[in-house]
């Protein structure tokens, strides 16, 4: 009997294969983030000190907008030829599909971050004055917060007429606490002026609550007409 774990792996492998062949999500995300980095860098031309203060917000807003591109793609793929119906009529548990999509999006956004971070460092002349080892933790928790909610709300807006607009309308307001925690934690680490610990704990709690809630509710979203 297939378990949620093995079905998640199978669906994730399928999604990675589809993305590898089409490169729809990663190309759009890269192009979008690159534009944000370059445009903001030319618009503000900040000093190193100013950069440390604004970079947290800038980086996460860029990743948030770029993630929306990937989140829309992830379900659009399932709507082409109505393949999602094939999953809905199968005995496979909805959670396996949801987890695979979240992990897949997490991988896409992490790849984007790995590619864009060096550019941010160069363009904004960044260096961390606080504990730099906390940055990957903030990145991982922040990315998970974006993709877990984003994947859920993208699925919710699937059958709406203008889903590209609907997703940000649903996702951005509910992401505000997470976004605040990501920005504050990143700024704290870059400036070294205060501890990021509180914001990291807040982010972890946010991830836990929204992951459980999404897993609980996704079955209803999937079976909705």
């Amino acid at each position: 009997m297939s378990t949620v774990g093995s079905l998640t792996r199978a669906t994730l492998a399928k999604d990675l294969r589809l993305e590898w062949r089409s490169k729809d999500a990663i190309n759009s995300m890269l192009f979008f983030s690159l534009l944000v980095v370059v445009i903001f860098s030319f618009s503000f031309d900040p000093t190193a000190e100013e950069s440390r203060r604004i970079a947290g917000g800038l980086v996460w807003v860029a990743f948030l907008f770029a993630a929306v591109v990937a989140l829309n793609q992830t379900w659009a793929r399932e709507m082409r030829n109505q393949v999602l119906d094939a999953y809905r009529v199968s005995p496979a548990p909805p959670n396996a599909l949801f987890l695979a999509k979240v992990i897949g999006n997490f991988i896409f956004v992490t790849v984007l971050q790995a590619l864009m971070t060096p550019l941010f460092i160069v363009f904004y002349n960044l260096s961390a004055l606080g504990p730099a080892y906390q940055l990957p933790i903030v990145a991982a928790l922040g990315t998970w917060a974006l993709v877990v909610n984003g994947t859920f709300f993208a699925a919710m807006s699937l059958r709406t007429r203008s889903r590209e607009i609907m997703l940000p309308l649903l996702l951005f307001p509910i992401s505000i606490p997470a976004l605040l925690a990501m920005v504050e934690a990143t700024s704290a680490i870059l400036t070294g002026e205060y501890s990021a610990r509180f914001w990291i704990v807040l982010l972890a709690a946010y991830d836990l609550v929204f992951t459980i809630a999404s897993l609980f509710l996704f079955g209803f979203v999937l079976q909705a007409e």
Partner: protein
Amino acid sequence: MLPVSDLPPVSSAVSVTGLVKQFGRFAALRGVSAEFAPGRLYAILGDNGAGKTTLLRALAGLTPPTRGTVSMLGTTDLRSVCGQLGYMAHPSLLYDEMSGMENLRYFARLYDVADSDLRCADVIRAVKLDPSLTRPVGQYSQGMRQRMSLARALLNDPKILLLDEPFSNVDVRSAQEMVKLLTGSRDAGKTIFVVTHQASLLEGAADEFVWMEAGQIVSRTPDLRATLETR
């Protein structure tokens, strides 16, 4: 999911009672009640908008009815028997970027099919396609895509097959081969529902022609000509 052996013996494979489906103010199904015996092939006919596809989707559990019940293999909990169901829709339900074999391998995992590679190759051959074809499904002809879609529906060796327009865009010879495959499956005990506008292909193959009109079943007869003459 219940294994077939654990399911209670049933006199009708599918039974619908007072099935109503409304989309806003439009009623696609208006109180459909019918019993369908196991091991038979039913051709569901009717003009566009008669409610054929909605009925099929309701049987598949994809469209929850506004009122009424669907009972399948003796239970109204369709989720518990969905592993015994094969569904082919008008769109292919396949990923265009993957080959036929890759698609079927993925769906075999969803149904926990044993010896999945062997089974995938078997059903692909059964619909007269080549399992070693590496071309992505998106590059298939429409007819090949339809046949691969039928292979996907057959993959889990279902007790009940729900097929929506399986012969559309398929050449006559391939369509006749598909009909032969369906009659063979029916003879092996499967209950098959085929929504089609090409009823003549099923003449002599279907056990019953079910005519739908304005969201209701208005006639059921084993004789296609009689069905068409009264319409």
